[in-house]
């Protein structure tokens, strides 16, 4: 029995590996069940962006379910300019040696070789991310070729389903990373929720479903499954601009399955305390008293100042192909 949706999968994908164990039994790695199942295991948790062993240890200590390794935090990527690439292999391996929670890392959109490097060193999940400078302006990675599961960003339902069709095992809102402003992530999750609600209103009407599938440039099977489930067939996390415990609780209450926090923790002046508070608020997002306790743990004067999303030189959510 599984509650993990296996719709629109590629059972013969290159990423599925037949392994013979030392006891001579045959096992499969990289199946859709394992990839989407791994994403499900992160549900209700917080995944924190880190750039060093010290930050990863703070995240683990605070109760993060996983860490996302970057060369620079999104806020610093904006400040530095230039080309943002995947993190150093050496740093990723040092972090893998230092913590016991899963390690994720970002690769550039469309950069199949960066993704292969991350897979080769054994990261647990790859984020094909618009936070880094896209390597291909028109194509995403064909993720069925990988044994390692992928996470992708999406601003709306069509984008999310197209990424799932390419083999992605987890979706996150794009938001506007590195700004400390949660408004864009809220817009994206509300857009997605509204589109799913609309879909559910004609879930039995295949004529309408195929019309919507064509409009969204995605498969009928995926759209039909989304209408049946009343949610995406994979886990959907919030990301982009989250900086306080209340931000995390807000997005969880809007229906997100978990939270990514990027610059919000390690660009604040109270990272260890804030990390613990965000985990607490995410876990007990439905309990305002506990979220209030979490808010008490942080000092607003120590929050990252943030950036005005209306006057950004670089809108990360618009980078790379959305089709």
């Amino acid at each position, binding site marked *: *029995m*599984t509650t993990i949706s296996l719709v629109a999968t590629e059972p013969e994908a290159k990423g599925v590996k037949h392994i013979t164990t030392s006891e001579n039994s045959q096992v499969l790695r990289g199946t859709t069940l394992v990839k989407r199942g791994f994403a*499900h295991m992160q*549900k*209700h*948790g917080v995944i924190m962006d880190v750039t060093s062993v010290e930050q990863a240890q703070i995240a683990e200590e605070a109760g993060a*379910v996983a860490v996302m390794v970057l060369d620079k935090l999104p806020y610093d990527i904006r400040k530095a300019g230039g080309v943002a690439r995947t993190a150093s292999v050496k740093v990723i391996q040092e972090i893998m040696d230092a913590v016991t929670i899963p390690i994720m890392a970002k690769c550039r959109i469309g950069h199949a070789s960066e993704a292969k490097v991350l897979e080769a060193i054994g990261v647990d999940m790859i984020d094909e991310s618009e936070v880094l400078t896209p390597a291909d302006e028109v194509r995403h990675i064909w993720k069925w070729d990988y044994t390692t599961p992928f996470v992708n960003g999406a601003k709306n339902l069509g984008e999310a389903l197209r990424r799932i069709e390419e083999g992605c095992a987890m979706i996150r809102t794009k938001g506007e990373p590195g700004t400390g402003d949660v408004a864009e992530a809220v817009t994206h999750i509300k857009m997605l929720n509204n589109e799913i609600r609309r879909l559910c209103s004609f879930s039995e009407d295949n004529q309408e479903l195929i019309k919507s599938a064509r409009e969204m440039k995605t498969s009928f099977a995926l759209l039909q499954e989304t209408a049946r489930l009343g949610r995406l067939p994979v886990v959907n996390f919030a990301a982009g601009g989250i900086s306080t415990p209340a931000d995390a609780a807000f997005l969880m209450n809007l229906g997100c399955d978990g939270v990514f926090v990027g610059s919000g923790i390690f660009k604040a002046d109270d990272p260890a305390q804030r990390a613990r508070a965000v985990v607490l608020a995410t*876990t*007990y997002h439905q309990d305002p008293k506990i979220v209030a306790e979490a808010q008490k743990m942080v000092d607003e004067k120590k929050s990252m100042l943030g950036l005005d999303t209306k006057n950004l030189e670089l809108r990360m959510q618009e980078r790379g192909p959305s089709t």
Partner: protein
Amino acid sequence: MRDKKKNIAIGILGIQGDIEENIAATIDALRTMKINGDVYPVRYPEEIEQVDG
């Protein structure tokens, strides 16, 4: 209110991870084994006292 004499109460740690999936799997197991039981997510310390295991 559940009748603990009739039904066994199983608690599933409801903090992080596959909470709904674990609840669904446990309900399925109880049904398969024909055991009368209810499954509850456990999120607060005091809830541990209210389950049998």
